[in-house]
């Protein structure tokens, strides 16, 4: 099984400019662990002082917010594309 993960520009300073990876992670927590294993410099930025993934980082699977799919319980499928978007912008009032 292989899942494509697209990383945002904001991550690339901590990933030696790697913009995209293929992972065999089964779930979101596995994916975060995989990212931290590959890019140790990313870890301290990815998690807050409480050890949790920072609240402003959003994960999308095939263009759907992973929180609509079960969040940490969602099992990645072969061919899934995961987008990581920090601090979703937009909105105003």
């Amino acid at each position: 099984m292989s899942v494509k993960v697209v990383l945002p520009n904001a991550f690339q300073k901590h990933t030696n400019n790697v913009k995209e990876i293929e992972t065999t992670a089964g779930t979101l927590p596995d994916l975060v662990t995989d990212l931290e294993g590959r890019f140790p410099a990313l870890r301290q930025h990815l998690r807050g002082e409480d050890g949790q993934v920072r609240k402003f980082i959003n994960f999308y699977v095939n263009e759907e917010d992973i929180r609509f799919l079960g969040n940490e319980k969602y099992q990645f499928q072969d061919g899934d594309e995961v987008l990581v978007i920090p601090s979703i912008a937009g909105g105003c009032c």
Partner: protein
Amino acid sequence: MTTAYELRCRECGRAYGNQPLSICEDCFSPLEVEFDLERARGRFTREAITAGPLNMWRYKALLPVAEDYVPTTPAGMTPLLSAPRLGARIGAKNLYIKNDAVCLPTLSFKDRVVAVALANAQAFGFDTVGCSSTGNLANAVAAGAARLGLKTYILVPADLEPAKILNTQVYGATLVRIDGNYDHCNRLCSQIAEKYNWGFVNVNLRPYYAEGSKSVGFEIAEQLGWRLPDNVVVPMAGGSLITKIKKAFRELVALGLVADKPVKFFGAQATGCSPISTAVKAGADGIEPQRPNTIARSLAIGNPADGPYAIKAIRESGGWAEDVSDVEIVSAIQELAETEGVFTETAGGVTTAVTARLYAHGRIKPGELTVSCITGNGLKTTDVLNGAYEQAVPVKPKMTEFAAWLDERTGELVEVA
């Protein structure tokens, strides 16, 4: 701080100077413009403001533009109306309407934020600007960019109201209809902004753009005779406006333009898209995203970027958040028009209905000085009133026919002279 203002991370506080950037490299949290208030102290005075132009640029010293910036996009300074007739209906004795339904040039409060965003787009050298929008922002960006000669790409949900689409296209903007909701547009914009060197007003220019909302707060205080209200009711989509009105009040207090006093902030959402009010009611700090399903499309943001900050602003102030049904939204649009002569769009219906409920539930006391923020114009969402009014049979142009019609309508005999 070596400049009058600069970007700072809202979470970790790291400073970034001034650049088209909205995300902290260290903790991936949003950036915000912080002003050196001491530096502004001599320039941001009641006298200097009063002598300034009759638009939002009278507050230029606390808006993020260069000191020598010459504004070409006047917006703001909209009426603050006493609302006794609406008040009588809902049990309010000291209610005001901040009427951005008549904000120029495109009839929504978004003209304020766009004026600041486009000033910065020019300063950073962008020749192309864009945004993701639920409609009002699209109109404002298209008009503002036309005036400044900038190229424009605007992403909107495909099901947007026809008037909002037309009111964007007429300015020559390139409109991209996205087969999805606003949150889909928004996510795509975040990706586009990383690939193309464009100034996206609500992505990479967002910290500057959002700061324009402060002008609503500055105006409310000035129009009340340099004092703060007891309560403010604000519609929430992304959740930014409510935090910026609070920031404006705080800056006015810090610089001595108004006396300090507690102000309660109340947030208004449609039940069909209510991630922020749901969190406030549940006592949660974070947002659970929702799939929007409401006629209030300008508030239909299921994953509000400033949600956590809006929750905090409301809670710290002792305020509250409420949400109302689509039926209540339409009734409130009609009620505001019938009582105060203000025709607002669906978002204003949300704010008005929520204001009424806050009085009904005793969260706002009748005599408290309360400002309800109307942010958009009813001419843009007339579709929600389709079928609301009977199309009467035409009356023949004769006095006898008219008298008969009036007789039938009023049930009174009217003498024809």
